[in-house]
């Protein structure tokens, strides 16, 4: 271990594939650790809330660790990814789950339609509605990799959108909390750039 603080702490929300996120941070030369320990998370420079699985399972795991109270009180940059972004909202229709209540609104089920397979799995263009340091150096309309069956509606907190049959929130922001519906760790060079941008956000904003 070196003396410098860990760049990002990854919240262990019970997801099965945290390795891809850890490898992505490692490729950027960043240090990271996976934990569910409230004190470690409170003291982290930056926090990443990943999530694969169901909203109810993830909230149950966060609740058992006391993190349902710790996470909303964080002041450092927080990045929710995929389900981790959805957990930032008030509620999710998935299992009628009460979530962290950081971003107002309810995450809704994507309904299949002709030309719109669900789950949504694939590369979609992301269009910014406003400038944010998270998107520095990334072309508007760049493709990111999405895998999801639920999505957040477009609200004032949506800073970037994607069109999958309808406009959906691709990136949400509420103060120091950021969330991406797509997986930056699996989105090639543009995803790596977004993660690098997150790692440059000041620890105490």
């Amino acid at each position, binding site marked *: 271990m070196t003396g410098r603080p860990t760049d990002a702490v990854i919240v262990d929300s019970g997801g099965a594939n945290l*390795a891809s996120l850890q490898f992505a941070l*490692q490729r950027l030369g960043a240090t990271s650790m996976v934990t569910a320990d409230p004190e470690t998370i409170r003291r982290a420079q930056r926090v990443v809330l990943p999530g694969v699985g169901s909203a109810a399972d993830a909230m149950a795991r966060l609740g058992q660790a006391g993190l349902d109270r710790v996470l909303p009180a964080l002041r450092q940059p927080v990045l929710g990814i995929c389900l981790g972004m959805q957990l930032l909202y008030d509620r999710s229709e998935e299992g009628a789950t009460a979530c962290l209540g950081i971003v107002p609104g309810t995450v809704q089920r994507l309904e299949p339609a002709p030309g719109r397979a*669900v*789950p949504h*799995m694939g*590369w979609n263009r992301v269009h910014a509605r406003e400038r944010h340091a998270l998107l520095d150096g990334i072309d508007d309309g760049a493709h990111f990799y999405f895998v999801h069956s639920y999505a957040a509606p477009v609200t004032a907190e949506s800073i970037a959108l994607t069109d999958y049959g309808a406009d959906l929130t691709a990136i949400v922001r509420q103060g120091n909390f950021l969330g991406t519906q797509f*997986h930056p760790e699996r989105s*090639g060079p543009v*995803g790596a750039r977004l993660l690098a941008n997150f790692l440059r956000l000041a620890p105490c904003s």
Partner: protein
Amino acid sequence: MRGGRVVKGVRFREHVVVGDIIELATRYRDEGADELVFYDIAASPEGRSVDRAWVRRVAAVLDIPFCVAGGIRSVADAEEVLAAGAEKVSVNSPALADPALVDRLAARFGSQCVVVGIDSETTPAGWRVHALTGDPGRAHDAGRATLEWMREVQQRGAGEIVLNCMASDGVRRGYDLAQLAAARAVCTVPLVASGGAGTVEHFAAVFTDAGADAALAASVFHSGAIAIPALKAALARAGIEVRR
């Protein structure tokens, strides 16, 4: 994959080694592949599960999604493969032997992690599902019609279906558009076309004529017959949206 090397056959036979896993994964990543799929084709016939060590090595170098298949017979098998860094697991023969495996995987990891691979043979009795296709000596009709099996696995929670049309596999004469279009009609989850890509036009047709969500190919990329950047440029010219 077989014995730690990448192999490719023709109509599921006569596999030859085409290269090292990491070298190929890195090459396809750099050429702009949107997703990679790794099949440990000997796993099911040999009664074992996919080797985790290379999954981890692949995950360390790939910044695009990848899916792993090969003898995943339990939630615990899948958990290890996902923990090693795979985005999705794909089940084929094990799902035919134990269809409730699809339900268990979807309940634990969510449908988006669960791909069902279907090897479909064109027979006088119609499109039929085949099992254990990685071993020519043991491959057999699984006793199911392809479209019925597609409906069943979706009800059980499959989040994606890879339909490999065996009669077309490795021969580069084009995807089986009729079968894929029929599959599209019963598929509300993403449908990945597999088997038969030989030219750029074959790829374009599978999107425009069969409505597939993605096209999977191996031979033409392994041999260098089609380079991914040239393919994507041609698809874009044909009006198909691609990541560049």
